[in-house]
């Protein structure tokens, strides 16, 4: 901490502003990753692995890489400038947990690209609905995380919505799995399809875990 006036002071607040922007950009990346994921899944269900799908997969990898760089920068700055010493640990864990969500999106697209599951048309709507709910769930946790930084009192509101959507995702996942296992497909296909249902639902579960820890951080952050 420096106390010298004007020039340093301006630098100090400038650095703070840059860091604030980086944190916002990082959260933008998480939300963006969700949108790309749902578009890619829609594309896969409609056409299968194609050029557009590959482009979306590349875009997802790109987002993941940028988010990683941003996260590392933020973490470095927080430690180098000894910022928010009392909450630094919490913020780092929050960023890492959010980063895992991006990794999960990217990982799922890779798995689809490699394993190319054969999804019968009767299950397309189920997959799309589950993906939509999961992506909304993640978007809501992004909003909760942004609130943690700017408006602590609305963290709780967003968290409540995250929990609601996670429960919805669970229900959709069970419904879809039941439909898969009551169908005439062979067991290996059933298990393959179930695997992807679980992977997508895992995103909602992970988002809920982040919301739970955020609730604790929010209590700690109170004045």
């Amino acid at each position, binding site marked *: *901490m420096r*106390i010298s006036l004007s020039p340093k002071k301006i630098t100090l*607040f400038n650095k*703070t502003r840059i860091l604030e922007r980086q944190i916002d950009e990082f959260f933008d990346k998480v939300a963006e990753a969700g949108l790309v994921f749902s578009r890619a899944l829609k594309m896969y269900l409609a056409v299968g692995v194609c050029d557009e799908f590959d482009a979306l997969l590349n875009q997802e990898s790109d987002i993941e890489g940028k988010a990683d760089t941003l996260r590392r920068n933020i973490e470095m700055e927080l430690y180098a400038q000894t*910022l928010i*010493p009392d909450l630094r640990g919490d913020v780092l864990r929050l960023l890492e947990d959010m980063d895992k969500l991006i990794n999960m999106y990217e990982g799922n697209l890779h798995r689809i690209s490699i394993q190319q599951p054969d999804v019968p048309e009767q299950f397309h709507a189920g997959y799309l609905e589950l993906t939509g709910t999961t992506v909304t769930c993640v978007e809501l946790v992004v909003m909760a995380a942004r609130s*943690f*930084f700017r408006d602590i009192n609305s963290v709780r509101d967003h968290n409540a919505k995250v929990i609601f959507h996670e429960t919805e995702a669970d229900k959709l996942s069970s419904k879809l799995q039941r439909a898969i296992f009551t169908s005439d497909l062979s067991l290996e296909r059933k298990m393959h399809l179930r695997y992807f249902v679980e992977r997508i639902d895992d995103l909602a579960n992970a988002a809920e875990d982040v919301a739970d820890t955020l609730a604790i951080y929010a209590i700690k952050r109170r*004045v």
Partner: protein
Amino acid sequence: MDLTVLILLGSGLFLGWSLGANDAANVFGTAVGTRMVSFSTAAVVCGVFVILGAVISGAGAANTLGKLGSIDAIAGSFMAALAAAVTVYGMTRSGLPVSTSQAIVGAIIGWNLFSDAVTDTLALTKILFTWMVSPILAGLIAVLLFKLTEWVLNRAHLHLLRLDAYTRFALIGAGAFGAYSLGANNIANVMGVFVPVSPFTDFALTEQYTLTSVQQLFLLGSIAIAIGVFTYSKRVMLTVGSELMPMSPITAWVVVVAHSIVLFLFASQGLEHTLAEAGLPTIPLVPVSSSQAVIGAVIGLGLLKGGRNVRWSVLVQIGTGWVVTPFLAAALCFVGLFFLQNVFDQQVYKSLRFELTPQVVLRMSAQGVPQVAYADLIGRSYESSGALLDDLTRHTLLTGKQVRIAIDQAKIQPLEITRFKLSSTNFSRLNEAQRIALQLLEGQQYQYAWELTDALSALSPQWTPRPAAAVNRSFNKRLEEDFAYLVKTFEVSR
């Protein structure tokens, strides 16, 4: 100034050093402990502002200590400060929260007992009352401030990082204010006992600004405090940061500001004058304990949050400290003075004489003390105010207030208004009319201090106390200080 004087001042400097080492932690402990502010920044800000506070605003609280007991020999002051310093050191070592204010008050009472001087019960009551009030007040201020801060922050929607940056500046600002208040309020503890025997003389910095002897004394004391901050407070800061209660940087800020406001309230002469001029009751200027103000603020916030985090054992410790500290310091001072006087052959107090001469009787009658009430004692002479008090309480039915008047009036204090002193002393604190009246008294000699004040009052309305009303309070207070300054200047040493 000879070497002996410096050595004798040493005990005060030691006390100042230990104050700096301990109490700087109250101001910057949480900020440094939570790593929001680096130790070097904290130490520089703290050192500079302690010195400013002491030199600019230190006089108010020192006056009250002076009223409690005016130690009139430098060896006596040495022992009082040493007894207080040893008490502070010993209590800190045994892990009890300790207040230099309480230690020095105890030591002064020890000196009063040894020199058989009367302890001004009015000043003592005022001090004790303030000690009780200051932690409670700190708690209340902390709660209000916390509520206000919470309200503002909930509406400001500041980004966590921006809030963090602002909090750092706020912590440094609050620390500077805290250090200033600490210097203003607590310099009296360190150097107050040396004020009546200050070896310095007024020193003109520019034509307008004079550094008075007291300010020079306070400058020296506050430098000792600053050295204490630099050399020893880091460790204390790092422990204090986590010791009291888990605190967020903003809570820490609230605590520091509440503590600083309390110390400032009990030290600010400016505020006292403003209140007096507005006809409002004034706040007594008394050295209070910085640690207890912090603990008061923390407990206030703890109660606000439901009281689960508060360690009530701390209250018991404070209670113990309140009782033990003054008694221990008084006892140490008494024993120390005995050794200093009888083993080292030092004069630890001036021999005084009190006599109820016909002049005194006349003046007392004018102040409403009936002569018949003490007729048997007229013409008697006493070696100490304590001896006079004994006789007055044993043989007369005078009230406490009348006894105080008798002791004040009967004190023999030979004064001589010499041409040399008139021309060599810096009277910049007096106005033109006051100076002219004073010049007219050249060559006069007096037995009692009040004779000089009477003579001056007869010469100029600028030397006449105004009727006791709130609007006149600051004028009369200033006049009292001017008279005290003249008495010190023209006193004939015996």
